[in-house]
């Protein structure tokens, strides 16, 4: 029945509107892939059916009156206006139903709060507008940004299958292990949600929240930020890839090696062209959301960089604001978010792109020195 409705919908949609053919007609929560999400799903279905039954009874009586007790049907009004027994009954019965409902709800909640005995710890930090994943104990982490191209969002290009639900670097976790998430945020409140896990928790500056998941099926699971966090709140998806444990270990080792290599790059001698090329890439992922791809900004909240006093003036001041941010504004401290190489590249880029032609080149070593001085 559902399948037929879906097909008919897709067919109709395909004819009427091109985007519709991509869409589906999911109407209910999905049970998800974890114990928690299944427990939640069954609570959801139970309370839904309770509501449906109460609704059928109450609306049934009401529709019966609407149908049979109309003046136009010649119905004469009765004159009763209270009945203690009935009134007590319809106070007590709902109360009892609620008590019955509260029992499994309490059990599920207790289970959801049990973050003990985790085997892997991941620290998740919300930023405007991206997620940072750090493998606690492994001394390794990275950022996860929206990967959907701007052209798709602005309708210049067809939208891909995972439109707005795709990232450059997904969070990778091993299947079959209890993974604990430690959530916090760097600027405003965000909320990390993966529906298939039944996990949603706010990431709040100054707090560390805990939650956990154990995924048994390998796969890619998608979600979104669910707490309004500013302009690009709709554009910071969550993507989690659950992989078999061996694969996870291999991946982790590779990533750590790559990170090490990246650090070594700091010592390399960079040319202007190399820095500009790398800087443009870093700029587009880290800076363009606010300062715009062409450096024009969105004043007053997000100042333009094109021709700005900082990007064309004193180099140290420029390094300072990028590394340390500016308190009280949306300008974050990128010192710990980007590598020395990326910092150098992005600053070089900002000083030479869009007609800022200062000719200044900032090298990774200079950034390292600057950071060490602090």
């Amino acid at each position: 029945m559902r399948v037929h409705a879906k097909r008919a919908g897709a067919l109709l949609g395909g004819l009427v509107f091109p985007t519709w053919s991509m869409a589906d007609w999911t109407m209910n929560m999905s049970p998800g892939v974890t114990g928690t999400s299944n427990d939640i799903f069954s609570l959801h279905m139970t309370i839904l059916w309770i509501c449906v039954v109460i609704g059928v009874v109450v609306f049934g009586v009401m529709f019966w009156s609407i149908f049979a007790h109309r003046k136009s049907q010649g119905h004469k009004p009765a004159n009763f206006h209270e009945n203690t027994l009935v009134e007590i009954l319809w106070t007590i019965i709902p109360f009892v139903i609620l008590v019955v409902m509260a029992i499994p709800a309490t059990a599920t909640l207790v289970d959801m709060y049990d973050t003990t005995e985790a085997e892997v710890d991941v620290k998740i930090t919300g930023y405007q507008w991206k997620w940072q994943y750090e493998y606690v104990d492994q001394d390794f982490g990275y950022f996860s940004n929206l990967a959907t191209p701007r052209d798709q969002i602005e309708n210049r290009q067809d939208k891909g299958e995972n439109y707005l639900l795709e990232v450059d670097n997904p969070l990778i976790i091993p299947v079959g292990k209890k993974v604990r998430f430690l959530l916090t945020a760097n600027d405003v409140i965000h909320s990390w949600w993966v529906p298939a896990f039944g996990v949603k928790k706010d990431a709040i500056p100054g707090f560390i929240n805990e939650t956990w998941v154990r995924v048994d099926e390998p796969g890619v699971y998608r979600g979104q930020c669910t707490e309004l966090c500013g302009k690009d709140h709709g554009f910071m998806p969550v993507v989690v890839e659950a992989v078999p444990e061996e694969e996870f270990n291999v991946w982790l080792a590779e990533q750590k090696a790559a990170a090490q290599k990246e650090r070594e790059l700091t010592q390399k001698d960079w040319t202007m062209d190399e820095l500009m090329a790398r800087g443009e890439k870093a700029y587009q992922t880290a800076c363009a959301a606010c300062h715009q791809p062409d450096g024009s900004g969105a004043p007053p909240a997000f100042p333009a960089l094109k021709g700005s006093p900082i990007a064309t003036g004193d180099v140290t001041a420029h390094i300072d604001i990028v590394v340390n941010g500016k308190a009280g504004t949306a300008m974050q401290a990128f010192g710990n978010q980007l590598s020395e190489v990326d910092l150098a590249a992005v600053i070089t880029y900002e000083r030479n792109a869009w007609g800022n032609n200062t000719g200044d080149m900032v090298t990774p070593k200079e950034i390292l020195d600057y950071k060490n001085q602090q």
Partner: protein
Amino acid sequence: MSAVADTHAQEHHHGPAKGISRWLLTTNHKDIGTMYLVFSFAMFLLGGTMAMVIRAELFQPGLQIVQPEFFNQMTTMHGLIMVFGAVMPAFVGLANWMLPLMIGAPDMALPRMNNWSFWLLPCAFLILVSTLFMEGGAPNFGWTFYAPLSTTYGPPSTTFFIFAVHIMGISSIMGAINVIATILNLRAPGMTLMKMPLFVWTWLITAFLLIAVMPVLAGVVTMMLMDINFGTSFFDASGGGDPVLFQHVFWFFGHPEVYIMILPAFGAVSHIIPAFSRKPLFGYASMVYAVGAIALLSFVVWAHHMFTVGIPIAGQLFFMYATMLIAVPTGVKVFNWVATMFRGSLTFEAPMLFAVAFVILFTIGGFSGLMLAIAPADFQYHDTYFVVAHFHYVLVPGAIFGIFASAYFWLPKWTGHMYDETLAKTHFWLSFVGMNLAFFPMHFLGLAGMPRRIPDYALQFADFNMISSIGAFMFGVTQLLFLLIVIKCVRGGKEAAAKPWDGAEGLEWTVPSPAPYHTFATPPEVK
């Protein structure tokens, strides 16, 4: 001084003053009630226009009409204007018009303050709406304005928003004091508390809620003001503050606030259903106790809006149980309305249509409320379109249909004419269909995983969003019909009898239609 005394004397003997000063200086509860209602409808159209912008952007995936910055300003202003500009003033307008007529009082107890509390409102909203034209735009952090998004990261106009909220708060508190003073002091001889009409009861309780929580709202925005302009760190973690504190304080105001927006409608519907069922209200006493219970419970459930912020499990359980409990008195009210209709002699004029739709659709909103109360399930529902569906079901067919039902019910008393029943029924059916088309699919969207407050969405949400937008446009356009109906009714139409509805009860129907400028100069006797 003598001039004041003069105009006063003149008013008493000759009815309203002429020209604009009638409205600027009036202390007459009917004039003030009318101004509140007109103001509220204007705000309803303005807030509605913003909703149309939101739904137009969400018609299809991708960014088409507005940019995310402006989208966020629209959702924020829509919420603020509807809550503080449309729903609350409409109920104060109904209170002004009807409370004195229902309790047999000549006017509100504090008529000059009454004038003040109205005229503060246009000032507040002028300030609020003007932020749209300021550098950096209007508030863009949602009607719940969570810190630090609204403090450290808020636009420069936030300070104006805070000022506007302060003014609205003062207006509401003054209005509430007036309602309480009127009800407690000016009832006709013989009208004991348990003989008061239910609209009077629900407003009395609402007024106490307002006095209890508006200062809390004022407090929280003042803390924001300090954080933004005077270097404090109430909500700034990097200065030792606590962003979660904001939410506790806000929702301590916010949850009672949602009942402030529904209790007066409960009252009005409790008049309308008996009138068109030609049968007394079932369970008057339990209705009163249920409203009292809801009001008390509403102070201890606030953290159900915060199940995902990480409160300790004991708190989580407490707020879950308390919230589930609130469904019991709410259920009692619904059962009583249905029992009132049962074995009545029903007719379905516009007020009754809106009232019956109120009961059905508000109950659906109550059901989703009950689902949201189950804390573990709320982890999935929270901040998705499921919540948006829930609160629109309790607020649109709840509060707003309650207001429409009241307006049609009492329009003959206000204007002396019957409204055009055919047009009114058309208004009802188009609103009913539009509203359900707009908001029912939002349940599905939320369950399928669409977060709220996003300007663009993944492709699997496309079809229900399109349906929802179509319903919203239909609902929006239909409201212009209401304007037409009211204008037509003010200007003419069939003369209304003192009691145009044969089943209606209450003192308001003992005075002629239209109600004279001054009524109950000598109090009636209630047996």
